[in-house]
């Protein structure tokens, strides 16, 4: 007589693979019947634990959480057909060619018209370029960093429209992050220094990819984030750091002011 394996008994327990012959065997065979009863007892001990009941406002509370972490841009529907995609690409290429021709045409025209003026200017000392300075608050910096990390975590590498802005955002955060980190180090705040150093590493990693973020790069960065729980650390800092109102001045195009 062929007895049931444990795997077959598990299948039977969950209601798959039943037949009249199987039922008869289980009724007649003492060994299989005992094994099945033992399985039922064990699995009964694993009956569902009561789930905490959430209030009817849970959806609204969750929406507030989701909304706060949502990317700022709105979604656009994917092109319905390949034809629409090609039309869009052709239009973009046409615009690109037009802009390039206009640009070089204009430059050439200016070059021919203003050569004597440029020569005169070349002798004069260059004026000091005006740099725009922005004030960044630590709390806002951590908010933006958290949003970036969340977006990075869920980014779909096959969609460059979603992924490419992340590189720009990382570059925008880098300068302020370094100033905050140096300040924290000077002021002897090891927890903040450690998180900002780690964040610096990830931001640098993202920023230094001029070709954009492909699947492999995203995986590597996500692994680094996951390994050290960076997102968690940033969230903790964001909610608990006493210096979250601290502000620094940052040059809009990188570097401290």
């Amino acid at each position, binding site marked *: 007589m062929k007895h049931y394996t444990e795997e077959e008994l598990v*299948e039977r327990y969950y209601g*798959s693979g039943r037949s009249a012959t199987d039922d008869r065997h289980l009724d007649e065979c003492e060994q299989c019947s005992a094994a099945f009863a033992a399985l039922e007892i064990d699995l009964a001990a694993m009956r569902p*634990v009561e*789930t905490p009941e959430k209030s009817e406002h*849970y*959806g609204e509370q969750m929406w507030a959480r*989701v*909304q706060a972490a*949502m990317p700022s841009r709105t979604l656009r529907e994917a092109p319905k057909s390949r034809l629409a995609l090609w039309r869009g690409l052709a239009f973009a290429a046409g615009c690109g060619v037009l802009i390039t021709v206009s640009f070089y045409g204009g430059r050439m025209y200016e070059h021919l018209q203003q050569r004597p003026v440029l020569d005169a200017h070349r002798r004069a000392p260059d004026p000091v370029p005006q740099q725009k300075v922005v004030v960044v608050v630590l709390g806002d910096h951590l908010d933006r960093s958290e949003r970036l990390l969340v977006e990075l975590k869920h980014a779909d590498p096959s969609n460059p429209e979603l992924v490419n802005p992340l590189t720009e955002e990382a570059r925008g955060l880098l300068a302020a992050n370094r100033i905050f980190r140096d300040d924290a180090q000077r002021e002897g705040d090891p927890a903040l220094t450690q998180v900002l150093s780690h964040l610096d590493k990830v931001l640098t990693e993202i920023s230094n990819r001029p070709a954009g973020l492909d699947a492999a790069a995203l995986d590597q960065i996500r692994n680094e984030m996951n390994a050290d729980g960076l997102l968690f650390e940033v969230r903790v800092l964001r909610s608990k750091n006493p210096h979250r109102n601290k502000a620094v001045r940052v040059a809009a195009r990188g570097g401290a002011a």
Partner: protein
Amino acid sequence: MCSMSQGDGAAIQAVLAGDREAFGELVKRHSRMLFRLAFRMTGNEADADDVVQDAFLRAYQKLATFESRADFGTWIYRIAVHCALDRLERRKQDQARQVSEDYDPEDGGVQVADSKPDPERLAISMEIADLQQAAMRGLTAMERTAFVLRHVEERSTEEIAAALDVTPNTAKQSVYRAVQKVRRRLTQLKVMA
């Protein structure tokens, strides 16, 4: 898996047309269902909240790829399964870092909760939830997910396979391995008690 609401389709179209607030309707409608699933998978209320949030964020970013003929409830359910799976894997990694002594399920020992270092006291005072948590502690994230979907959520093998993006045979094997490990652990816990 889940019944499709008439309003889901309209809300999705509105979100894709640029109305972010419309996404709130979907969140409010499906949050409680996802919380139940997430809690059963993670066994922890705070983690379950985070899973629900992650699932909606992921869904928002991928909404443009959502097939309008599909059921949003089913789609978000699968996303939540993956989010919970990610969280379980991450929790496993964190625990592996925090606990200095490695636990080998083959060596016959019993891993106990970190906050209650005395195994005998733990076994004696163990409530059902603790017992279940202890029994499931040796499972991989995939096994735990497959087991919860089968045993608690009562999903079919095909539904589990679809939710986990694996073949039905892999899903079935994951459930079987989970049951085996759970039973082995229960036997050990009974001996201790």
